[in-house]
């Protein structure tokens, strides 16, 4: 345990009664409750706390807030570690363990620092260079670049504690708990508004906690405390401490990450009638050679460490400034001299210095100290020994959120930074963010003389985190980059976790001066969400892995599970894939299920189909317009296969239409398209054809459906429903009871066998399953899953969504051209007539069989005239579905082949360039099994 050499004996807002132990890079230190990791590291006298990203230069704490570019740390160990946290934002807790980043093997002896020496390899735009190098060079560069490109490693899942986002509505959202934010929140509460106050610090007050002013005759800290207590006591005010508002979007949705600790955060989605942005202003650095040595920091940060944390970051610091704000609140900082860029300073300003010596018209030409500042050298050669340099280069209002919400910014010459232009609808900017408080005697600000920055030996860093220098910006300009957006991307300026907070204002000023332009012509880079680094786990919340989307289970789920189903996710559905016996493989089980269905009887869950109830006097007119095939002749009690086209003439979906009464129809869609079909039908009914008298009801979830198929299916159902007429022809419908359950029994078949679809009310699913299973023992009934369903439809040459209905095929392509009615108009008719959709050389549905019955057609194969020899040839078709057929033996496939319907009997090659194989195949009809359909119809 070490003591705290830089901690002052008294003062500050830390709780000296509660000392905390922590470890940094394996060594033990001590701080107090109320410290941040940064203040505790400074108290311990640690000057080097990290290495820079690109050049691995030693760096120290630079700021005291979210703008921190240097002090990035990893908190925690192993898979629990959370990387890239700003030490200035990490609250000290007892036992905290933190590590520096970008340093290997150690902070003080870093091999990567050698890279800094090989400057040519890491010049401007370094990560674009390999793209221009010879191709082989990329393989050498890639591992090096990848390692350099990342910051800390991502944490393991165990480190992440997810929470469900909280939705909050309020009259007034105040972002920022400094003086202006507190005033706005107090006023809101006084006006009877419901207020949400969000502040990124653990304690309200903002700059009040470290400035020495008084408000309403109270010292600032007490005033802040009084406000905080008042607001906390109000029922109408919610205070989010540690809440970072990182996005403000359209419709005034504010996203706030409330930081509860490393790896723990809570997302708030806030809707407010009115938003007040009291986001404050940040101090800007001053550009000078060697401006990155540990010990160099922002003056306001030094004030904060001193007043709030009772830490002196340096014992003999100097202040470097260009404006009057630096002359405030210097007492106790131990400043040995104030260096002002301006040739003259007004006497009433100088008077504030008391005994501190002042030097005017100063330029810093160099700095010294390998692992921390030891001296600076001025333009006249004078050397000033010092262990700290506090810079005050003016202020930059924090307007990222305002800009994100659509607010426009204007560069203010006097301030040297952007100010908001005009108000937004429901968003106000107040306080320092509006330039509304005294930000240091604006007019007296001195601009930097760029000519003095040229021809210097040491680098001048504009963006400390990404190691982008003044020299890099000049170099980018020399290479033709002018737009600030291009310069940002080429040099990476402003692209770090700090989002270039300390870089942007200086960059704009610099570019304007370099190009002789008005800063408003330069503009600024786009401020996008997130404004501050946000844990992805906070944004995602619980919506990951199996919580990402709802998982739908059919009414037969429990029964299927009981029957030994292995489930598979298909879309949102959890669907029985196969009912494997112990020790059986997927293929073996599928084969058994198929053969049993073809020889005896099987049943399969069809409940996930879309089912829609259509009623009304104009129901038939509606159907005739929706489907491409004629339905006018459909009699009551009959079902017809029907095809729906998109407006552009391609196939949208297939399903069935059943006429229940003259003005009452039952429609089904595929499982995959059920949602889209419903939207389509409702759009047509409500928007396009409001004159048609029809109603449409989604009854998908009301009906549980089992397809019972196989030669024994009729006898099986008849044994449970003696009163039903099951001898009806294909497409018939019997309504009655099956095993005591009210049921609709459709005579339909997807498998190609004699089959019935039994639809019962969803709450009777369990009952019908049990009844069928029990009665089915005498008939050889076995349930079958998605695999067997698919195998049987492929053997039969039936089409499916996703494989044959792939968004590119017309009815004619799939051999269904004769279904398309020429007696009526329907959706898709006009554009189906387009010449390319009617062309004779389109790819058409065919079957494939290998010439060698023992060979396997490679899955996902292409069709070509020549075998695979590793060379290029234009394919003439592709397979859509490949199986080993249990019924017919051997491999078979459905395929789309150019002009295929005229090519049955031809020999082609099924190529798989991926596995480098080809298989000679014969083109056949796609209907492999029972092509006349006797089994399902007779």
């Amino acid at each position, binding site marked *: 345990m070490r003591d705290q050499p830089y901690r002052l004996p008294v003062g500050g807002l830390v709780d000296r009664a509660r000392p905390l132990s922590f470890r940094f890079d394996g060594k033990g230190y001590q701080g107090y409750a109320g410290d941040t990791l940064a203040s505790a590291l400074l108290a311990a006298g640690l000057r080097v706390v990290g290495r820079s990203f690109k050049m691995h230069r030693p760096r120290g704490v630079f700021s005291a807030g979210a703008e921190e570019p240097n002090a990035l740390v990893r908190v925690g160990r192993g898979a629990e570690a959370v990387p890239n946290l700003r030490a200035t934002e990490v609250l000290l807790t007892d036992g905290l363990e933190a590590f520096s980043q970008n340093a290997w093997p150690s902070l003080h002896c870093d091999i990567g620092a050698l890279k800094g020496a090989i400057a040519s390899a890491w010049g401007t735009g370094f990560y674009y260079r390999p793209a221009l190098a010879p191709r082989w060079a990329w393989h050498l560069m890639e591992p090096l670049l990848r390692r350099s490109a990342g910051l800390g490693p991502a944490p393991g899942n165990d480190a992440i504690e997810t929470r469900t986002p909280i939705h909050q509505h309020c009259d007034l959202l105040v972002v920022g708990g400094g003086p202006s934010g507190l005033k706005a929140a107090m006023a809101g509460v006084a006006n009877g508004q419901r207020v949400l106050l969000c502040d990124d610090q653990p304690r309200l007050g903002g700059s009040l906690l470290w400035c020495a002013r008084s408000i309403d005759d109270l010292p600032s800290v007490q005033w802040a405390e009084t406000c905080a207590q008042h607001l906390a006591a109000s029922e109408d005010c919610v205070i989010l401490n540690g809440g970072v508002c990182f*996005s403000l*979007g*359209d*419709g005034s*949705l504010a*996203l706030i990450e409330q930081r509860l600790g490393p790896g723990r955060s809570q997302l708030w*989605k806030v*809707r407010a009638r009115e938003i007040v942005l009291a986001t404050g202003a940040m101090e800007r650095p001053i550009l000078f050679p060697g401006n990155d040595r540990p010990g160099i920091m922002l003056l306001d940060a030094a004030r904060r460490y001193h007043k709030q944390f009772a830490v002196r970051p340096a014992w003999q610091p100097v202040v470097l400034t260009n404006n009057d704000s630096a002359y405030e609140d210097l007492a106790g900082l131990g400043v040995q001299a104030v260096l002002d860029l301006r040739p003259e300073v007004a006497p009433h300003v100088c008077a504030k210095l008391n005994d501190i010596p002042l030097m005017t018209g100063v330029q810093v030409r160099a700095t010294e100290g390998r692992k921390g500042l030891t001296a600076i050298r001025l333009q006249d050669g004078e050397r000033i020994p010092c262990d700290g340099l506090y810079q005050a280069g003016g202020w930059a209002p924090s307007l990222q959120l305002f800009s994100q919400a*659509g607010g426009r910014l204007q560069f203010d010459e006097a301030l040297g930074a952007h100010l908001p232009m005009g108000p937004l609808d429901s968003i106000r900017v107040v306080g320092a963010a509006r330039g509304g408080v005294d930000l240091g005697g604006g007019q007296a600000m001195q601009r930097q003389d760029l000519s003095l920055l040229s021809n210097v030996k040491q680098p001048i860093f504009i963006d400390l985190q990404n190691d982008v220098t003044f020299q890099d910006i000049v170099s980018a300009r020399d290479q033709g980059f002018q737009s600030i957006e291009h310069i940002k991307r080429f040099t990476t300026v402003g692209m770090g976790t700090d989002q270039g907070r300390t870089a942007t204002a200086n960059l704009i000023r610099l570019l304007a001066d370099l190009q002789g332009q008005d800063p408003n012509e330069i503009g600024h880079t786009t401020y996008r969400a997130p404004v501050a680094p946000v844990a992805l786990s906070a944004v995602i919340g619980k919506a990951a892995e199996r919580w990402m989307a709802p998982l739908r289970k059919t009414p037969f789920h429990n029964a299927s599970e009981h029957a030994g189903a292995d489930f598979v996710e298909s879309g949102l559905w959890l669907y029985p894939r196969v009912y494997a016996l112990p020790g059986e493989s997927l293929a073996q089980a599928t084969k058994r299920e198929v053969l049993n269905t073809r020889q005896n009887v099987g049943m399969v869950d069809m409940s996930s189909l879309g089912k829609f109830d259509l009623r009304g006097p104009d129901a038939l007119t509606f159907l005739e*317009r929706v489907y491409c095939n004629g339905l006018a002749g459909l009699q009551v009690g009959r079902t017809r296969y029907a095809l729906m086209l998109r*407006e*552009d003439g391609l196939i949208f979906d297939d399903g069935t239409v059943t006429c229940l009464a003259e003005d009452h129809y039952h429609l089904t869609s595929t499982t995959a398209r059920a949602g889209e079909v419903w*939207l389509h039908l*409702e*759009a047509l009914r*409500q*928007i*396009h054809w*409001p004159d048609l008298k029809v109603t449409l009801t989604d009854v998908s979830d009301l009906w549980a459906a089992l397809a019972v198929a196989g030669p024994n299916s009729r006898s099986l159902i008849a044994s449970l429903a003696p009163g039903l007429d099951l001898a009806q022809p294909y497409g018939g419908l019997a309504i009655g009871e099956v095993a005591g359950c009210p049921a609709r029994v459709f005579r339909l078949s997807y498998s190609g066998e004699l089959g019935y679809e039994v639809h019962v009310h969803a709450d009777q699913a369990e009952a019908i399953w049990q009844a069928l299973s029990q009665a089915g023992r005498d008939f050889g009934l076995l349930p079958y899953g998605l695999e067997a369903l698919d195998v049987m439809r492929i053997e039969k040459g039936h089409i499916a969504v996703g494989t044959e209905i792939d968004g590119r095929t017309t009815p004619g392509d799939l051999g269904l051209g004769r279904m398309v009615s020429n007696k*009526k*108009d*329907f*959706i898709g*008719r*006009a*554009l189906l*007539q*387009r010449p390319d959709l009617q062309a004779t050389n389109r790819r058409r549905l065919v079957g494939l069989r290998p010439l060698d019955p023992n060979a396997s057609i490679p899955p996902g194969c292409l069709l070509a005239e020549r075998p695979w020899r590793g060379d290029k040839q234009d394919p003439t078709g592709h397979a859509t579905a490949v199986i080993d057929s249990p019924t017919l033996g051997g491999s078979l496939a459905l395929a789309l082949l150019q002009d295929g319907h005229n090519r049955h009997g031809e020999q082609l090659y099924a190529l798989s360039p991926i596995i480098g194989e080809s298989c000679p195949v014969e083109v056949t009809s796609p209907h492999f099994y029972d092509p006349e359909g006797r089994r399902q119809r007779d």
Partner: protein
Amino acid sequence: MAMLRIPCPWCGERDETEFTIGPDAERSMPPLDGASDQGAWHAYLHLRENKRGLRAEYWYHGQGCGRWLRIVRDTMTHKITLVADVEEDA
């Protein structure tokens, strides 16, 4: 992330996530009278103005009333200036 709030005439002001955006409401579907030709359908389906400013569009309130709504939205600001049930509007 849902951004918009849509004042549904039936359900009140609701989050954008409850809705699905549908077809452009600036043009109407050609009638299915056997006479509408490829040109009319091509224009309806493929030609878009990509308007800057006010634009009429259809949104479906799938997690609410199940009605299609006609909404006028400013493509620059996303501000919604009119919401009506398609039937009221027709």
